[in-house]
């Protein structure tokens, strides 16, 4: 069986990739994709810890908790909401300023 730490290192790599994309890319859609990558790295962690965790009811010997999976489901729901609102914001900004570059979105700069 695959060791738990391998899943965690994979998740760390995906999270680092997403962080790099969110910090370095100048294009708003690419930044959004970086954020999605980070959320997915977190999801791998949650599911791996759920699978390798010890959450068995000692009395009945049955599974009582699915915390990791439920958390991952809620992360997916929040990611869907975030993607919808983020892309709507990008469309709205593009309509007003004709750009999706984060460097040119400087309306609030004094």
């Amino acid at each position, binding site marked *: 069986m695959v060791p738990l730490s391998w899943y965690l290192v994979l998740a*760390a790599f*995906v999270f680092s990739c997403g962080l790099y994309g969110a910090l*370095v890319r100048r294009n708003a859609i690419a930044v959004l994709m970086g954020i999605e990558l980070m959320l997915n790295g977190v999801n791998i962690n949650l599911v791996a810890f759920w*699978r390798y965790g010890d*959450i068995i009811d000692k009395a009945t010997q049955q599974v009582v908790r699915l915390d990791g999976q439920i958390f991952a*489901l809620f992360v997916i*729901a929040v990611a869907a909401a975030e993607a919808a609102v983020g892309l709507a914001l990008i469309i709205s900004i593009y309509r007003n300023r004709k750009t999706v570059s984060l460097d040119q979105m400087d309306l609030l700069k004094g």
Partner: protein
Amino acid sequence: MTLSVLFFVLIGAISLAAAVGVVSSNHPVHSALFLLAHFGTLAILYITLEAQFLAAIQVIIYAGGIVILILFVIMLIGSEKIVNQAEHRTWTPYVGFALGIVLLGGLAISLLQGFTGVEPNAALLQGGSPQAVGLELFTRYILPFELAAVLLLVALLGALLLARRPKLKIEEQ
């Protein structure tokens, strides 16, 4: 090296390559397609972790919903404009890359040292089925579930409001 380890290494390598492709390709459509490949491999990894319902959800929502939405927006705006308008500052990619490597190295060292000898839980083999997840979701987690429904509704209304075409003010002129 058993078959499951070999399978994990293969799928993990594809997943990592796709993740690197997402952040490194200049063309946004290529990034989105790499993101699709990455989500697909993650669904396979969820199946290896016995989370079958989550794997299906990953494919349906991420691959079928979010990536398609991103592709729609890229095509609405026009990918040429996005590529042309992307400015390249000289030093930020290198600093970001170095900091990312430092973060990854620190995390990997601590993770590889910290979790040795943890075995998967044999009693959780049926825990990833839709029945088990649904039972848990509608009993113990019913309040967060309803709150997520409200969140999605608000996000839907907000997205509609933000992306709506502004009214033309012809009568005032």
